[in-house]
């Protein structure tokens, strides 16, 4: 829990802060051309909570955690530790994969919420000092878009991404072959596959799944 969650906190905070600020500058510049800077809060709220927060957190967790899980399981396999576990009548999947899956299901959404909060804060700094929007207006716009539907979408995605990270990283670790070189390859594959699957899953959710729930959210 500590390694997967708290260990990723710094990375997630940095990601949230700088991506929130970066997007806020880009949006503020574009919106000012149309005299619509006041909409910055609404756009940032929607973009961060529904898209940026879950996806960036998922990608960061995939890079940091998926590689760690695959490397750890792969190393255990190549040094016969998994076989040793089985020889003691213990199922390595239940013993190793299950706790990591549960931890990810808890920690990826938690990290997403933190990333969202930091990104919104970062965007607020840009709104105040770069776009010169009043703070009251910014927060009012943020609150306006923080409705149940958006928060629900922003929390369902990270749960799905945590499943993606857990299954791919554990699978790649358990099926790694060929000693240290094989473990290295499996680790790379794990990060690449997790990242791509997260991006595709995000698109599928946004394009196909959530529109189906429109009447309910």
């Amino acid at each position, binding site marked *: 829990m500590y390694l997967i969650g708290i260990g990723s906190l710094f990375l997630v905070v940095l990601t949230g802060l700088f991506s929130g600020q970066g997007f806020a500058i880009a949006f503020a510049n574009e919106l000012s051309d149309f005299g619509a800077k006041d909409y910055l809060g609404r756009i940032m709220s929607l973009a961060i909570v529904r898209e940026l927060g879950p996806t960036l957190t998922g990608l960061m967790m995939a890079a940091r955690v998926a590689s760690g899980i695959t490397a750890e399981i792969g190393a255990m396999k190549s040094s016969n530790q998994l*076989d040793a576990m089985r020889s003691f*009548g213990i199922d390595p999947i239940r013993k190793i994969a299950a706790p990591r899956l549960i931890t990810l299901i808890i920690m990826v959404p938690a990290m997403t919420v933190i990333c969202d909060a930091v990104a919104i804060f970062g965007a607020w700094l840009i709104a105040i000092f770069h776009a010169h929007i009043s703070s009251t207006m910014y927060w009012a716009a943020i609150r306006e878009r923080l409705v149940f539907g958006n928060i629900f979408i922003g929390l369902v995605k990270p749960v799905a991404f945590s499943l993606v990270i857990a299954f791919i990283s554990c699978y790649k670790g358990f099926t790694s072959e060929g000693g240290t070189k094989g473990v290295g390859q499996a680790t790379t594959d794990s990060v690449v596959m997790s990242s791509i699957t997260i991006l595709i899953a995000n698109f599928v959710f946004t394009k196909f799944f959530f529109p189906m729930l429109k009447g309910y959210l």
Partner: protein
Amino acid sequence: MIEFRNIDFGYDEKLVLKNVSFDIDQTESVVIMGPSGSGKSTVLRLILGLECPQRGEIRIDSRNICVMKEKDKRELRKRIGMVFQDGALFDSRTVGENVGYYLIEHTKLSWKEIEGRVVEMLGFVGLDASEIIDKLPEELSGGMQHRVAIGRALLSTNPRIMLYDEPTTGLDPQSAENVLNLINKLMRERSISTVVVTHQIADALSIANRFIVIHEGEMAFDGDFVGLRDCRDERVRNFLSPFRDSMNLVAKKKFMNGV
């Protein structure tokens, strides 16, 4: 107790074992020898049910392990102790947690009780528990790691069968002798079936009276020391030829001891 019947086994269409058959009785000690890559370690993995053969039958206590469900295999494995090559100690756990691993996972004993048994077991395998119980495996020498692995296998299951995969490979002569003495001590005191895989002839001769030689996946020899020494099979003679002197020395010793 352990029955191998016409076993064929391979990885990716390459046969590692070809028509291998043998029986190992209760309390019998057998050494499986052969050049590197001949399929020796695979035999241990098959006995443990970690792999299943493409053809043939493996029976442990008259039960065919190949057709068992994974859950039943796990139960069966609790009666088999396995010491893997390089020990296969859990590197994120301390020596104490490694040795007491089975008790931690399968019993509700408190750590205090487990620790007591761990200390006792470490003493049995000739290690000073107070010095190493809280250390990580990587902080130990190769010989100590092997002895911890043997202690872990013994404490975990109170096994009726002990399997050793290359127990002295990579050890200095003193550590190797300590490990061999420990294996012999276990065979004497616990009367359990022992299967040792090695390509070190001197180790083999000091452990067992029955020898199986595997060459390129085929059984080239199964018999006692005299049979091994006098074997006419070209594959066995080639394998043993660098060790003729040490075999003659052992033969002399055995003759002097009346064996």
